């Protein structure tokens, strides 16, 4: 690695510098970090590795291959956009956390071994929590603690998995792991634990609540950072370790379906986007599960596009939050009047996520769909089709509609600040560029792309799907059957640990306290009784302690002698 830094190091050094600077200097510096990182990455010789001896392990800090480099590039791009978006924020904590977070994501995808992966995995958790804390709202502290504990739980499960995996295989290299049948062997336990750890990070349903809990609670700019990295690192890890694992097809399908129902009825638009994020990751996981070159390419490219268009959507909502203080659908509406640029960029994001031809979602998602049907997963294909229609509903229509159009809430906020607009514009540009000219993205994919997105057939069917999905929404609207936006909280799997668990543990604790009190009372009484008895017997007034008449002493002596003599003569 001549003259190059380990890619994550660029960000960490940047973070250190950001910690020491402030004001415009810090802003400029922060913008330079991903650029410098990109230059560093660009000049990185192909197939670079960087090894480090630690404890008894040889760690591969850097492994540059096509898969890792694609994600690294993605994260550099995402970091640049997110930093630009957050450029007006004067908070040192968020600045440093953002750079560390981005660097950790880069480090994680470039990690050649599992220990390095684990280290960055945890760094992601620790650095990202600041975006939630920095919100400073009434809920943010508790949310942050939940987020952190779940994230670290993922980390420690990964650690355990790595240990088992290393024991079974004798290697800590991060390659294809696969999923053996669960037979209690170290290999199986290891693979399952690693998979579960990744599932948590990827927000697979029932492990997902940290995402829908935390992202809506983060700062306006923080969610943009959050949305870019954590889950995508998980997707990368799945693609690296579990490509072609059949279970993932099922899980991915469920994941694509599960959130769309919640997204329809959710009032907080950032939470809608969070559910939408799960849905998109579901597509990727299906692709990874199918595991063919086409499917993996589809999953990876969709991850790339998702980061950008989901980032774009989160940015537009961030701008709305920044200007209005809320992202609740029930409180918004009609903002297009005063925030036209934001509205436009949001629409680009909506079109992209809906996979409208010439927008980025189209060129990547269709690969997964095609792979699903080609590899003989017709039901999965149907389900994904259903989910695609759902995406149109909640991300394509609901987000822009309720925020910017719909009924006029009467709010006339200012247009988003310039840096936000620039960031959104850049993201929108990438969405359109990748959608219209996907070949550069395709060239960067791990496998050679033998896929033509822009056939008449593809375009036609997609347009049919989109148009009639929209039509159905319009129809429902007009007939008054479309569900209203109601200020509400929809409970999800988090109910288990936010309601049930405290109740159960509270009961257990109460029982324990009761038991302890009981034991203490009884024990205390027992001890004091023994003490009293001892004092009575042995205190100054006690049997042995008091002064005895001489005769009594003599009696003792005689008794002892008598006993001996008796014994002697018997």
């Amino acid at each position: 690695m001549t003259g190059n830094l380990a890619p994550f190091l660029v960000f960490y050094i940047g973070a250190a510098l950001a910690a020491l600077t402030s004001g415009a200097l810090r802003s400029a510096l922060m913008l330079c970090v991903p650029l410098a990182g990109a230059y560093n990455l660009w000049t990185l010789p192909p197939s670079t590795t960087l090894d480090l001896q630690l404890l008894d392990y040889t760690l591969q800090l850097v492994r540059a291959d096509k898969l890792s480099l694609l994600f690294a590039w993605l994260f550099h791009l995402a970091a640049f956009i997110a930093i630009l978006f957050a450029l007006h924020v004067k908070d040192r904590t968020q600045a440093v956390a953002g750079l560390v977070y981005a660097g950790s994501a880069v480090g994680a995808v470039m990690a050649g071994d599992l220990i390095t992966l684990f280290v960055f995995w945890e760094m992601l958790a620790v650095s990202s929590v600041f975006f939630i804390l920095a919100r400073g709202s009434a809920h943010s502290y508790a949310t942050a603690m939940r987020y952190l504990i779940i994230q670290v739980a993922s980390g420690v499960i990964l650690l355990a998995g790595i240990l088992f995996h290393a024991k079974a295989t004798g290697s800590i290299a991060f390659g294809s792991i696969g999923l053996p049948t669960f037979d209690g062997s170290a290999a199986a336990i290891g693979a399952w634990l690693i998979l579960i750890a990744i599932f948590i990070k990827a927000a697979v349903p029932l492990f997902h609540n940290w995402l829908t809990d935390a992202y809506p609670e983060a700062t306006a700019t923080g969610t943009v950072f959050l949305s870019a990295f954590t889950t995508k690192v998980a997707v990368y890890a799945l693609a690296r370790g579990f490509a072609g694992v059949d279970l993932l097809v099922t899980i991915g399908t469920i994941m694509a379906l599960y959130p769309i129902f919640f997204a329809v009825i959710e009032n907080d638009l950032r939470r809608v986007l969070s559910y939408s994020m799960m849905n998109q990751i579901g597509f990727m996981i299906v692709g990874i599960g199918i595991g063919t070159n086409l499917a993996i390419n589809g999953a990876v490219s969709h991850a790339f596009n998702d980061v950008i268009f989901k980032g774009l959507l989160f940015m537009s909502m961030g701008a709305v939050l920044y200007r209005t203080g809320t992202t609740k659908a029930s409180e918004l509406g009609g903002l297009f009047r005063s925030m036209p640029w934001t509205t436009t960029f949001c629409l680009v994001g909506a079109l992209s996520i809906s996979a409208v031809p010439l927008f980025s979602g189209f060129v990547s998602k269709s690969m997964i769909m095609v792979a699903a049907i080609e590899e003989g997963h017709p039901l999965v294909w149907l389900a994904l089709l259903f989910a695609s229609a759902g995406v149109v509903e909640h991300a394509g229509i609901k987000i822009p509609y309720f925020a910017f159009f719909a009924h006029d809430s009467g709010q006339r906020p200012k247009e988003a600040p310039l840096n936000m607009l620039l960031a959104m514009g850049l993201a929108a540009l990438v969405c359109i560029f990748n959608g219209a000219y996907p070949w550069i993205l395709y060239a960067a994919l791990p496998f050679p792309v033998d896929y033509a997105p822009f056939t008449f057939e593809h375009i036609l069917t997609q347009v049919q799907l989109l148009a009639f999905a929209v039509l159905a929404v319009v129809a429902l609207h007009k007939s008054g059957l479309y569900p209203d936006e109601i200020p509400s909280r929809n409970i999800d799997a988090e109910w288990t640990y936010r309601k049930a668990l405290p109740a159960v543990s509270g009961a257990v604790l109460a029982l324990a306290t009761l038991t302890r009190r009981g034991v203490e009372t009884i024990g205390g009484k027992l001890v004091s009784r023994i003490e009293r008895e001892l004092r009575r017997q042995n205190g100054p007034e006690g049997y042995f302690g008091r002064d005895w008449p001489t005769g009594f002493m003599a009696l003792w002596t005689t008794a002892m002698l008598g006993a001996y003599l008796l014994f002697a003569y018997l």
Partner: protein
Amino acid sequence: MAKGQADPSSSLSPAAAAAAHGADGAKAADKHAILGTKSRDNIVLYVLYAIAAVSLIGDFVIHRHVGHPWEALPEFYPLYAFVSIIVLIFSAKALRKLVMRPEDYYDD
């Protein structure tokens, strides 16, 4: 399609009215138009209908590969999408009965 011709603002009334309820009454008239004026709203709708119509016709013009038996059905995609949304929305409404709680449900 006939229904689509109707005034969009009036059809949206349940949602809009409910939400606009607390807002400034003087501006209520404005709020019926999603894009500011009713004509703009209508243009968008007409464009949508046009695209939908063209895409329906396209199904007979362009040959499609068939991966799944259902896909062979004429107008499979429009139909599937339309039904999907209906199913989705109604399921979600049903789900609401199950999961919807007050906003401060967890705050105690």
